[in-house]
């Protein structure tokens, strides 16, 4: 990770402890509610068009009767060397100076090239205009834009919460610290499997956890330098 000391911008990262994940999917529900993630519906989901900015992947290990179920929450990995970024012809996806892989919905023309080049398959396309069943329409988060059809969307690390946290820190005349920003998934995790913070700050929780012997990144071998760090299970 490259940092310029004069910028001193926070570099946002997430740590997920797989030992603690129970696969309850509270993070998925929280993400839907927070980010106005549309509900594709049964029929569309069956066609492979469900939208879940965060999903819990489930792997079965071993043979019956010694079967173990493994859970792994996967969202946009906010890669430092993101394969999705250089391929977008209109800069709809770009790298922010806070290490976020940002998606600008208004710039997107919908080539879907970014999604094709994402090794994590965490980009979602709006094939149809977004629709919500009746009462849910009234529960949309006013701080998050509803994406129009024909554009790509994905996890933002709850950019609206990051902005709020940064403004609060600025008002109080200090740098951001742990607890200022909690994305919806992190906040809702009942086993506290996820933590979020500024990895450029050596005192932060994510900094500390990322140095753990259990730390690894998803498909590190591709050189994408993800900003989501997984703590492997101990047996």
């Amino acid at each position: 990770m490259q940092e310029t000391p004069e910028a001193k911008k926070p570099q946002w990262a997430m740590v997920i402890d797989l030992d603690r994940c129970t696969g309850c999917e509270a993070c998925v529900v929280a993400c839907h509610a927070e980010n106005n993630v549309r509900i594709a519906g049964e029929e569309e989901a069956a066609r492979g068009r469900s939208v879940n900015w965060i999903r819990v992947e489930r792997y079965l290990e071993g043979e019956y009767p010694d079967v173990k179920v493994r859970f792994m929450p996967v969202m946009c990995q906010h890669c430092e060397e993101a394969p999705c970024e250089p391929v977008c012809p209109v800069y709809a996806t770009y790298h922010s100076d806070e290490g976020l892989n940002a998606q600008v919905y208004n710039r997107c023309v919908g080539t879907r090239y970014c999604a094709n080049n994402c090794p994590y398959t965490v980009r979602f396309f709006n094939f149809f205009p977004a629709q919500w069943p009746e009462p849910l329409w009234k529960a949309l988060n006013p701080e998050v834009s509803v994406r129009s059809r024909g554009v790509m969307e994905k996890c933002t690390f709850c950019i609206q919460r990051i902005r709020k946290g940064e403004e609060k820190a600025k008002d109080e005349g200090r740098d951001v610290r742990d607890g200022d920003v909690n994305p919806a998934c992190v906040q809702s995790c009942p086993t506290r499997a996820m933590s979020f913070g500024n990895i450029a700050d050596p005192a932060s929780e994510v900094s500390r956890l990322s140095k753990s012997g259990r730390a690894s990144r998803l498909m590190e071998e591709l050189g994408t330098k993800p900003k989501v760090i997984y703590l492997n299970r101990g047996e």
Partner: protein
Amino acid sequence: MSKDHASNADINSQLLRPVMKTGKGWYLTVTVSGLVLLAAILSFAYQVYRGIGVWGLNRPVFWAFDITNFVFWIGISHAGTLISAILRVTGAEWRRPVTRCAEAITVFALMIGAMFPIVHLGRPWLFYWLAPYPNSRGLWPNYRSPLLWDFFAINTYLLGSLIYLYLPLIPDLALVRDKTKGLRHRIYSAASLGWRGTQLQWKRLEKAVGVMAVVIIPVAVSVHTIVSWDFAMTIRPMWHSTMFGPYFVAGAIFSGIAALIIAMAIIRKVFHLETFLKPIHFNNLGLLLLTMSLLWFYFTFAEYLTTYYGNEPAEKAVFQSKVSGAYSPLFWAMIACCFFIPVPILAIKKLRTIAGTVIASVGVVIGMWLERFLIIVPTLAQPRMPFNWGSYRPTWVEIVITAGTFGYFVLLYAIFTKVFPIVAVWEYKEGLTVSSQEHGAPEAQRLVAHGD
């Protein structure tokens, strides 16, 4: 001299007949192909109205028929370059009646291919955002994106091939001008740019055509290389390959020759041009097709064998889905259509007839469409994380739009043959003088003897 005169008039009337007279068959062709195109336009309108979800695309298969058609038609467009430019540069005499058919294929196939990057967008009405112009977004387009390279490469190629089609048309436009009256006369007068057939004009024309023939070859090679880089620049299994550039160029020329053979056979039949498009042309093009078939097979074999031996899990998954999995019927149909059917037909001299080469070509065109589909969809359907594996099935919208591209191609080609002589009259005559020159005719004659 008077004998020459008579044969000139004869050639003119035969080659200009399609322009001067319109048969029932032509109207029927235009109506049918126009209706197919109309169906495709309505389907596209429906897609714009409802959203691109009316296609069969999903996550992870974000590209399918759209990009298959794109690569396929850009590939077909390589017919004109190879036949016309390379044969012109190398001075192959037999090319003369073939060049214009080929150049027209290039322009029309490119026009159709270039539509797909627009048609397939999630918001097609914003396609112009790919163009570099001062805009309200305060942004240049992203020059790192292979899609932007496509944008420039295809536009360059389209412009170049339009010029390359137009230049050799000028003397023939003047010929039609001299034979028509009224409005048509005025239109052809303007289009022929004041051509009078002077020595100086011929000299300049030949120079310009010569320069364009040389220039268009590297442009054509670069276009399909860049199309291949749309895939090769990614990190997807079985896309990220160093040999995609030459593999795609070879495949493009391969399918282009096949399309040319089919187009020539149809033109020969419907316009009764048997005296101009002879079995020798089909024989020679058939040999070229054979060469490209062998080359294509070599590339395909090399590509798949290295993937197989590399045995990398993500690549292996895609490989197996093609060779023995869900896509294997299509894969083996492709191998049959591109190699096992055409090679014996084209290699055995007895079978390398007009009918034989057309059968082989139909196989190649089908096979090469499948090839592009098989490059795109199996890779997308099997991303690196098995949790996300998917599948793809086209909807009627994609199928109608695909059919519409063929309708559009036939329509454009039919109109072209009605407006312009499909065999280059002056080039054909030049060929006659060149061969009689070997028996002692003066050179000056070939330059002025274009009219009746």
